[in-house]
């Protein structure tokens, strides 16, 4: 809270106008020729000879399997020279130009939000590759190390957005690959580069999210399933189609039960459980679902004040602390306020 933002923190540093959010979320094949040119440029910028070969793989899993198969002799990893070195130099240059406060303000204004979003996807992919490819502990260690050699292609978008990556700048090669491809592995003799996923499904908050199939899917069948950011299995998602209120009540894992309730629909569950509202006022309706061996689910049902195009008013449900006693107290809590203070003059 003692951050000192002053007039000197103006972010006047040039960044390349590219839609980095779109880059991070892009799906389908990019321009392979442009991606390969980016790889060669990144080697050249690092003072290295261009790779003898550039090999494409369909997914990070496919790349890891190729690199551990022994069928290519890629040479030593050069990620440090190709990515980390130029990045550290650019970061130091910017940090010197802006100062510590200025640099952190610049980061907040450029890459910070996208970083959080992209990083959660990156972590899921890492975990998914390890799950799918690892066998014994020795192989798992080998794969973990290999994942550290990767440059993340489109998933480098967040930090790249903080720098000038126009042609002629130190990060132009890495940025050119990011614009066209997924993760890539630079080695002295060979670069292995992967296609972007075919499908990416996210919720409005940017988290991996899909109820009827994989949230992230690559062309070779490497897939990840998630519900509002939470990792789930394909089998669990399949089981959601035949849910019953009883099945929901019987689920012992609280997180999975929450997913079940969200998928099934709170309103439907409440109707079929003959639930009665706890409280009702002009802010909304407060509901409670009692669950054995777990804290009650207490929710406010809130109505948007602007009608949808068809004239209906959209209702949404927000879970609030189980101690909530009135609808107003619940809605006020969702905005971090006390019930006595919450009093909108106008709402739409």
């Amino acid at each position, binding site marked *: 809270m003692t951050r000192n933002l*002053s*007039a000197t*923190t103006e*972010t006047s540093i040039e960044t390349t106008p590219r839609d980095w959010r779109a880059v991070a979320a892009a799906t389908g094949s990019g321009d392979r020729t442009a991606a390969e040119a980016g790889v060669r440029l990144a080697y050249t910028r690092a003072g290295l000879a261009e790779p003898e070969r550039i090999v494409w793989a369909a997914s990070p899993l496919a790349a890891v399997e190729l690199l551990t198969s022994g069928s290519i002799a890629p040479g030593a990893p050069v990620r440090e020279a190709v990515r980390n070195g130029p990045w550290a130099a650019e970061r130091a240059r910017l940090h010197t130009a802006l100062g510590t406060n200025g640099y952190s303000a610049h980061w*907040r204004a450029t890459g910070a939000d996208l970083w959080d979003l992209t990083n959660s996807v990156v972590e899921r992919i890492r975990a998914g590759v390890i799950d799918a490819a690892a066998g014994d502990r020795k192989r798992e260690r080998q794969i973990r190390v290999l994942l550290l050699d990767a440059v993340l292609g489109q998933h480098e978008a967040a930090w790249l957005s903080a720098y000038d990556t126009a042609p002629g700048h130190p990060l132009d090669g890495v940025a050119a690959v990011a614009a066209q491809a997924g993760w890539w592995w630079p080695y002295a003799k060979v670069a292995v580069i992967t296609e972007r996923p075919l499908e990416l499904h*996210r919720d409005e908050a940017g988290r991996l999210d899909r109820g009827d199939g994989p949230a992230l899917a690559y062309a070779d069948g490497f897939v990840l399933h998630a519900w509002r950011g939470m990792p789930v299995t394909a089998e669990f998602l399949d089981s959601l189609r035949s849910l019953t209120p009883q099945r929901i009540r019987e689920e012992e894992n609280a997180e999975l039960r929450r997913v079940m309730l969200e998928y099934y629909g709170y309103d439907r569950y409440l109707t079929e459980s003959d639930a009665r509202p706890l409280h009702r006022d002009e802010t909304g309706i407060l509901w409670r679902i009692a669950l054995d061996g777990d804290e009650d689910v207490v929710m406010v049902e809130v109505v948007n004040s*602007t009608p949808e195009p068809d004239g209906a008013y959209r209702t949404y449900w927000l879970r609030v602390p189980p101690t909530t006693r009135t609808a107003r107290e619940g809605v006020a809590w969702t905005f971090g306020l006390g019930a006595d203070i919450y009093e909108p*003059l106008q*709402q739409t």
Partner: protein
Amino acid sequence: MYRQGDVLIVALAEHAVPEHARAAMGEKRDGRGRLVLALGEVTGHAHAIAGPGRLIREAGAFGPMLLHLPEGGRVVHEEHAAIGLPKGWYRVVRQREYVPGSVRVVAD
């Protein structure tokens, strides 16, 4: 106090405005020159203000944020009716949801 979907805009008394906020440059505007109070990742729908003003981000990824409208302004969103705001300082609060063990932000 004004609510537009999942965003609450609370008037802030002049004396309650932190000194560092008065001097801060504020957040960049989006490609359409607007101050974006909250953005939906997938639809790209935004709670946004066109005219003059500044948006100052405080600690945390989603705020709270402070909004200064020296001449008043209008908050628009693709799915909600616009709201007119008198001139002054505001705190912008994003709606959150209770999750046992943590709290998560809502996005509409």
